[in-house]
């Protein structure tokens, strides 16, 4: 338990309490001495950069080359920059934790917190020509900007590398130098406040001349030597060479107080202390060597002895103090903490805290304390929870949360959400404050940055495991963290197999959703590691996602493979169209022939756009049947079948389509024959182009029976078909005599039913009847019926004892209502029907 709940660290600047909290004890490297260093630190417990202070005499140790060293707040060196760019004027951190270094020649270099160069640019314009004497890195709503002052006393602002620089108006009467300056941001605009002699000059972009404000101080002084703007750009502090401090609003219309420090030495830094409970500030802290002075608006003061060298870092809810031996924070004491821990506090939360303590001691007093806060217990619980969030010491946090837990038991229907939320966040905050992570954030900073930013900062610092745990704990997506881990592996591990193995090992956990191997592969490709990229792609089960990267890498072969594997024909088509543009046609063919789906899709595309390309494909494939058909279609389109027949036939033959080839030859022969036939008939009959069958038909029609028979034997036309042709043509011409003669010429290979049929087709029942007699007995019923000879049909059916047909006839007779026949049928049916 901390002694007196750390109330010893409290101090009063009337009417408010402030406190100094120990965050961590930095463990600086042995060769690092703040005294000789110039240090800039990023807010939100971010990294700090240090370089040897050129203005101080330093005992030389090791190399004399200038070096920027970057540390985290626990004193671990995260990186260093061997400086070889020229004279460094100033450094500062951007809101995305980049180190911005401004050079004398108006060049700006940007580094990440590991000291890797990210970009460099020049301020440009006039500033690049004239030397720079001073520079400031400032935060604004539009991001982090750089302000430089040239030897000519002009000031330029540059928001980032893409924007052009802005020149602020000249300083009026610029014959004497200014002593100090600061950049103030107002909405999206930034302006400069300069201290010169006894006046403050405001230089705003767009105005032609600066505005001068003088006579701010009542007491005598020579000049303003320090100027400080609060974190929220609302308040201004001025300090004179005579030790006078002026506090007021940034527009200098309002003066809070004028305070005489009574000191003649020059302060190191002045920073406003932002309040913990709102976005305002009531006091400033001034650092002198070995001494901190806190002055508030009411001109009350408090002082704290300190290390000889220290650096102040303004935060959104306090001021951090970094010194050789300690890392502390001055902040206004949160009201809730004061309520609980203040001596003789009468607040309900304080009673609740006591009650809980007594309860643990198993003391009856617990109940007494409880009764004192019982009416306000909800407030008390909430204050305890709130206070826990403000505490840095886990023990205190625990006791406060335990108090809240104890207290909420007395509240019916208490909503535990806030309690749970704070518990969760505290756990994260404590983890972040651990020296290994070294991100000492307050609860307010944590909420302001929001967890996603913090996760990305963790990831950037390569604390992947912690980041994943934090994400899990806060129920945030975690897969992207793994993805970053994989990126890191891809970029730093040179062994392809090892990387792929490690990545799959981590990724195979099924609870991880939405991880894309493709993104990682893309990174690998960007790093010039195509081999690894392909290995990683192979791990991605959704093959369609491989394609874009494979195309980008020029791995057309694999792109086609992946596209076909995905089965997505649209994707296959897209790939084919894409790579065909980029390849030699022969190579293209070689690739796609390996993949049937790709080949088929390509054929289909070509079918509609370019038939000759199709021919090329068939040729490479030695697909002779398709070649034959290709020629065939072309011939049909151009009406030139005859000249192409040999071509088609040859291809068929090469493709081992023997029948087709023979048929082509037959057709060719036929076409020749047709020509002679046509000439013989003086063109009266157009034979040309008719099929073999139709040619015979035409010949039979004109009575050229001999010729037809010759064709029959030449082309191996089966007897059946020839007979059909004969009887059809005969019936067509109503040549019943010939037909009968023909029927008797030989035994019919097709039977006599066709004879019946052709007769019936010409409605000649009498002729049909002749042939029905020659039909097989079984079929007679049917043909009689079809001929409409119902009586014969009935008789015949009876003879055949064909009950089924009789039923059929019965229903037919019912339909045509023939009572005589119907009776006959019924009689027959009665005779045939089995007795029951």
């Amino acid at each position, binding site marked *: 338990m901390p002694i007196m709940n750390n109330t010893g660290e409290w101090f009063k600047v009337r009417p408010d309490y402030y406190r100094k909290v120990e965050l961590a004890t930095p463990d600086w490297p042995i060769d690092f001495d703040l005294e000789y260093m110039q240090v800039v630190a990023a807010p939100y417990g971010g990294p700090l950069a240090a370089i040897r202070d050129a203005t101080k005499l330093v005992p030389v140790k090791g190399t004399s080359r200038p070096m920027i060293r970057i540390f985290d707040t626990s004193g671990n060196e995260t990186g260093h920059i061997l400086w070889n760019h020229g004279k460094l004027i100033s450094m500062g951190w951007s809101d995305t934790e980049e180190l911005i270094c401004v050079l004398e020649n108006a060049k700006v270099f940007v580094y990440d917190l590991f000291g890797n160069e990210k970009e460099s640019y020049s301020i440009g314009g006039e500033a690049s020509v004239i030397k720079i004497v001073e520079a400031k890195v400032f935060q604004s709503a539009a991001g982090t900007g750089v302000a430089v002052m040239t030897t000519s006393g002009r000031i330029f602002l540059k928001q980032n590398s893409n924007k052009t620089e802005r020149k602020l108006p000249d300083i009026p009467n610029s014959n004497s130098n200014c002593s100090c300056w600061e950049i103030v941001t107002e909405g999206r605009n930034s302006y400069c406040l300069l201290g010169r002699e006894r006046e403050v000059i405001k230089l705003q972009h767009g105005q032609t001349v600066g505005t001068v404000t003088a006579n701010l101080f009542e007491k005598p002084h020579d000049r303003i030597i320090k100027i400080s703007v609060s974190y929220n750009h609302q308040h201004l502090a001025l300090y004179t060479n005579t030790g006078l401090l002026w506090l007021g609003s940034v527009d200098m219309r309002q003066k809070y107080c004028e305070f005489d420090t009574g000191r003649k030495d020059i302060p190191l830094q002045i920073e406003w202390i932002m309040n913990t409970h709102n976005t305002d500030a009531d006091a400033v802290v001034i650092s002198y060597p070995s001494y901190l002075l806190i002055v508030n608006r009411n001109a009350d003061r408090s002082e704290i002895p300190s290390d000889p060298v220290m650096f102040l870092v303004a935060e959104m809810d306090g001021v951090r103090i970094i010194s050789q031996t300690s890392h502390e924070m001055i902040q206004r004491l949160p009201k809730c903490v004061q309520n609980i821990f203040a001596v003789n506090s009468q607040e309900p939360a304080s009673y609740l805290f006591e009650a809980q303590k007594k309860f643990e001691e198993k003391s009856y007093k617990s109940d007494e304390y409880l009764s004192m806060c019982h009416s306000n217990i909800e407030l008390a619980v909430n204050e305890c929870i709130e206070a826990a969030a403000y505490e840095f010491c886990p023990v205190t946090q625990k006791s406060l949360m335990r108090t809240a837990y104890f207290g909420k038991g007395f509240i019916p229907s208490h909503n535990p959400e806030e309690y749970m939320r704070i518990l969760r966040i505290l756990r994260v905050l404590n983890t972040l404050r651990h020296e290994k992570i070294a991100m000492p954030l307050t609860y307010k900073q944590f909420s302001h940055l929001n967890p996603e930013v913090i996760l990305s900062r963790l990831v950037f610092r390569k604390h992947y495991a912690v980041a994943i745990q934090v994400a899990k704990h806060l129920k945030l997506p975690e897969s992207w963290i793994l993805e970053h881990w994989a990126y890191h592996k891809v970029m730093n591990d040179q062994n392809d197999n090892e990387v792929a193995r490690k990545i799959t090992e981590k990724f195979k*956990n*099924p*609870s991880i*959703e*939405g991880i894309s191997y493709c993104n990682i592969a893309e990174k690998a490709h960007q790093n010039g590691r195509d081999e690894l990229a392909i290995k990683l792609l192979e791990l991605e*089960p*959704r*093959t369609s996602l491989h394609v874009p990267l494979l195309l980008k890498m020029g791995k057309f072969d694999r792109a086609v493979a992946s596209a076909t594997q*995905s*089965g*997505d*024909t*649209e994707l296959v*088509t*897209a790939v084919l*169209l894409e790579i065909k543009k980029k390849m030699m046609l022969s190579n293209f063919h070689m690739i796609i022939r390996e993949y*049937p*789906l790709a*080949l*088929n*899709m390509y*054929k*289909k*595309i070509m079918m*509609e756009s370019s038939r000759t390309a199709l021919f090329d494909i068939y040729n490479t494939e030695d697909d002779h*049947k398709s070649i034959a*058909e290709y020629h*065939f*279609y072309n011939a*049909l389109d151009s009406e030139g*079948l005859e000249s192409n027949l040999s071509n088609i036939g040859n291809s068929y033959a090469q493709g081992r389509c*023997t*029948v*087709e080839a*023979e*048929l*082509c030859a*037959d*057709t060719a022969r036929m076409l020749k024959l047709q020509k002679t036939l046509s000439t013989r008939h003086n063109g009266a009959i157009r034979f040309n*182009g*008719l*099929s*073999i*069958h*139709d040619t015979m038909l035409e010949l039979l029609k004109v009575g050229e029976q001999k010729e037809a028979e010759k064709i029959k034997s030449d*082309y*191996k*036309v*089966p007897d*059946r*078909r020839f007979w*059909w*042709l004969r009887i*059809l043509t005969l019936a067509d011409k109503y040549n019943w005599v010939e037909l009968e003669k023909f029927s008797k010429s030989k035994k019919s290979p*097709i039977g006599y039913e*066709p004879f019946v049929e052709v007769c019936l087709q010409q409605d000649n029942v009498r002729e049909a009847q002749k042939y029905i007699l020659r039909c097989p007995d079984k079929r007679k019923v049917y043909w009689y019926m*079809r001929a409409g000879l119902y009586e014969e049909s009935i008789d015949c059916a009876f003879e055949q004892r064909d009950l089924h047909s009789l039923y059929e006839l019965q229903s037919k007779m019912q339909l045509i209502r023939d009572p005589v026949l119907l009776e006959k049928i019924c009689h027959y049916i009665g005779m045939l029907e089995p007795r029951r």
Partner: protein
Amino acid sequence: MFPYLRSQRVNLQLLQETSARELEQHLDSIEGIKVIVLDEAMIGPLGLVTKPKIFTDRGIKLIALKPDLRSPKEVQNIVYIVRPQVKLMDQLAAHVRNNNQAGRQFHIFFVPRRSCLCIKHLENLDVVNTFMHFGELTWNFLPLDSDVVSMEMPNAYRDVSIEGDTTALYQAAVGLVQLQRLYGRIPKIYGKGVMAQFVWDHAKQLAIDEKSLYNGDKGAIDQLILLDRGIDLLTPLATQLTYEGLIDEFYGIRQNQLTLPGEHFPAYYTNPVAASGSSGSTAGAEDPERLISDSDRKTIFLHSGEPLYGELRNKNFNEVRMLLARKVKDIQAQMNVNRQEQTVQEIKNFVDRLPQLMEQKKATSEHTAIAGLIDERINLYSFNDDLAAEQEFMICADIDRPSAYIEDQIARRSDLRNVLRLICLQCAAASGFKERVLNYYKRELAQVYGLEVLLTISHLEKAGLLRAQTESRAYAVLRKTLHLTVDDSVEVNPKDISYVHSFYAPLTARLVEHSLKPLGWQTLKSQINNLPGPTFEDFQVQLIGIGGRHAGGATPSETSLLHARRVVLVVFVGGCTFAEIAALRFLAAQEDNNVEFVIATTKVINKHSFLDSLMSS
């Protein structure tokens, strides 16, 4: 909006609503007066998921794509809804050129997938820059009826088997994922055939990201059976003998609509009572149900929303005749009761029932007319002769020799399509021809119909409809083991699915029937080994993440429902016939099976449309 899609377990209204919403959202995101221009092939499918109301509400006019049609000046947006067909782009480009004016914007929606080939073609035609937006309407399965969804891709089987273009299969896989998104994870999967396997493999692959699918309990569908058309090529070639099948074969049912010449239905133009009393299903120019109307033809809606049709559609036609006769008698009896002897109350009852009765009367006479048309057709000798020949093949009579009947048909130069159909049917029944027989047929066909027929034959060969014999005679074996042909079949009040083809039970339906039995699929597996393509089964279990709470027991919800009706999704990859649908509905109607089917198909096909798609070049 689509009451006939409603059903208890797998309510396809949901699918319809989802699809319609997709379109509505796209339309609402386009500001200003708009006109929708439809690809001819999209008119029907669009009608399956949208009613004209959603367009009239938004003041949108629908027109069919005709290149030289100009839209009025005030139209600010032209929205094309098209199938991704390159050929169509020429017309579209012409239409764009004719309608291009300042301030007008053009949008394309491809159904179901944007096509880079089409866009490239538009680029070549130099109109691509006029388009604001290339969108897609991801409509894969469209609801036809309360238990049928169709992709409306008539060329699916052809594209895959002849051209090796597996787009239809991929889209079917996408569609299956979509269905699972709507109706939940399907735990058990059975399948047969190469195309079926392709669909399933990709559906599974596509579902990798659908974590929510695997985390939840199983969905409304218990089982998925994927059947490849390629395993049963006999059924689609055979003549269907159900009412619906016959209507489709003779007149073609397009997206639940039957269009017939108006002359067959004179009664409705003269009888105003019947016309006005209808619920919007009669024909006529101002028919509110149709998206684009056609005045001198009569359109009849054929779906389960029409009670009489629902009753008749799956029956053998011989039964339909009887049922219709009975219906007519019923109605007559009800209309002609002697009113004078009735009490006022009875007469009031009658009057109350009158509109309903009129409705019934109208439906009955409508279907009597249709049945009459069909009757005429099936009484033709040629129909019966063909049927007899088909049935000979089905019982494998003289299957290995060239068929005399077919030879006669060739000799008489009968309709080529029908001749080829019979040859393919014989081939399917024989499980492939001996080379000699095949060559004989080829020679005969070429000699009679000309050499060009070889190109058609080549298509049929690639499609597997004509092929050389392999060792196994799958059909002959399965005919015995699975009782594909039934000796004592009955067409009226049947006891077995074989009634749909008089005595032949479609193989696909038989497979489904057998798979319903306990251990059915396991027993089937060895039996259907001889059919082409792999036999596969798969399970999609609930994914239990690390630290998940479902640790106890595998999936209790999946086993405890033993007594509830199973819902089985049967997917026909490559199309199915109405007879097959009827057979499955018959199975579902049997109480013992305790099953409900949802049927998904690439397209409802019949012997004509199937062959047509394969024969076209």
